[in-house]
């Protein structure tokens, strides 16, 4: 019962922090996009626009919730939840830091450390298709259906490259537990270069992982599911009010999970100078590394145009997947050699 209580408290705290952060991530995105385009960005609501997320939330709640004329009202209501829940569930295995001592108890800064942590994240990732595909189908609109099918095809294609790119890390670390993978990466080579996987033998895997991750979360330049000029808004065309907000938050939560996973697998997670002794420093390192990836996401959105659909599929199947196989080959050879 004690363990269950501890996990429940940790879940509540992490959900609160992450959801608040996601609301502000939207504000940061608009600010950064504004700076890239030589604008000011939102600055009307509160000082420096800091109350903007609150205003957005109120607006989402107050808006009319329109349900289109569809025979599948239950699925229509269920789809946003199916899009939001998997990325939030994936937070359970992300190691945010090492262990802290609180009230005489050792508490790991991770909700649970299951020994198939990485597979668990990918299993949840494969469930994310359902929200999109069911939203597209139950909306009873051709734009939604086409957007949903397109999105599902894209996610299935890039999921393959994403999963294969991680195989190299698994071969090197020899474990599926995320906290163990972080521990393997602690320490330095030659006293200066950290033993992160991105430097040691997995740079190719890292690049493939990040490209596939951008595609997997349907972000620019792979945001074909919501290509405005062709599909209005893709699978969530018919959604409004809080149901639309759930898709919105789901997308940002997926971005956060993928960034946190990239940090954990390739950038050494919470490790850094002094993180073993001062656990909160580890949390800071983790946040900075994850924040860097989120910044790159926004940067890409401000810089790159959208791919064409055939280019997207060609790139995924004919370049990324073979390169992931090459990476597995190299990693296995290195593992045998060492």
């Amino acid at each position, binding site marked *: 019962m004690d363990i269950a209580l501890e996990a429940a408290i940790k879940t509540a705290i992490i959900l609160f922090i992450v959801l608040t952060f996601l609301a502000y991530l939207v504000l940061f995105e608009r600010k950064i996009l504004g700076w890239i385009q030589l604008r000011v960005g939102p600055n009307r609501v509160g000082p420096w626009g800091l109350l903007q997320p609150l205003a957005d939330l109120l607006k989402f709640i107050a808006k009319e919730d329109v349900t289109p004329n569809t025979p599948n009202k239950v699925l229509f209501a269920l789809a946003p939840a199916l899009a939001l829940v998997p990325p939030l569930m994936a937070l359970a295995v992300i190691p945010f830091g090492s262990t802290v001592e609180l009230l005489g108890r050792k508490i790991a800064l991770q909700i649970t450390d299951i020994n198939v942590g990485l597979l668990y994240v990918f299993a949840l990732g494969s469930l994310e298709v*359902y929200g999109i595909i069911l939203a597209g189908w139950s909306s009873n609109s051709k734009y939604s259906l086409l957007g949903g*099918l397109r999105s599902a095809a894209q996610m299935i294609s890039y999921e393959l490259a994403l999963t294969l790119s991680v195989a190299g890390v698994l071969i090197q670390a020899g474990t*599926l537990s995320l906290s163990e993978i972080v521990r393997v990466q602690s320490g330095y080579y030659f006293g200066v270069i950290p033993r992160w996987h991105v430097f040691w033998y997995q740079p190719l895997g890292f690049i493939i992982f990040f490209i596939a991750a951008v595609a997997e979360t349907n972000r620019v330049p792979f945001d074909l599911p919501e290509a405005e000029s062709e599909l209005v808004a893709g699978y969530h065309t018919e959604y409004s009010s809080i149901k639309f907000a759930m898709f919105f938050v789901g997308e940002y939560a997926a971005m956060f999970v993928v960034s946190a996973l990239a940090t954990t697998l390739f950038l050494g997670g919470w490790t850094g100078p002094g993180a073993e002794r001062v656990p909160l420093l580890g949390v800071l390192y983790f946040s900075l590394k994850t924040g860097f990836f989120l910044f790159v996401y926004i940067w890409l959105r401000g810089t790159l145009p959208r791919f064409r659909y055939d280019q997207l599929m060609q790139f995924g199947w004919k370049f990324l997947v073979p390169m992931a196989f090459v990476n597995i080959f190299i990693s296995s050879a290195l593992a045998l050699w060492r």
Partner: protein
Amino acid sequence: MEQLFFIIFAGIALIGAVNLLLRRNPLYAALSLLTTMAALTGLYIMLKAYFIAVIQVMIYAGAIVVLFLFVIMLFNIRVVERQTDRRGYLKWLALPFAIILIGQFVYIARLFEGNPTPVGTEVGLTEMVGRKLFTAYLLPFEVTSILILAAIIGAVVLAQKE
């Protein structure tokens, strides 16, 4: 506690399976299958077979049912519904097969006197599965991979015919 969870998961799995058979709309049938798979995952986790549990979600929920949904959505569902096979003699075949199946079930159930003994918590771990797969069951594993490769090539050849 454990019994309660078992009853919940087993109940969901059974309801999903029955619903799968009763639904006319193939989309809802596929979603019922998904429900059953999710409940089975819960049962695997209770058996401490984490690897199988996660793989169950990845393969069945993440790949196979998605494929079903694709097929259902891309074909016109109403046409498929009307063409449902209703040949009469199949109904009469069902009865003997059901009797055989129930007989097998009773026979297997009688093998267990009291509670079956647990095989140990180590068995479900990824490491153990991998070790067994690449030592004791290497030949079947490799043969299966050749079979899958043949199926992939077959699919590509069929798709390119046009």
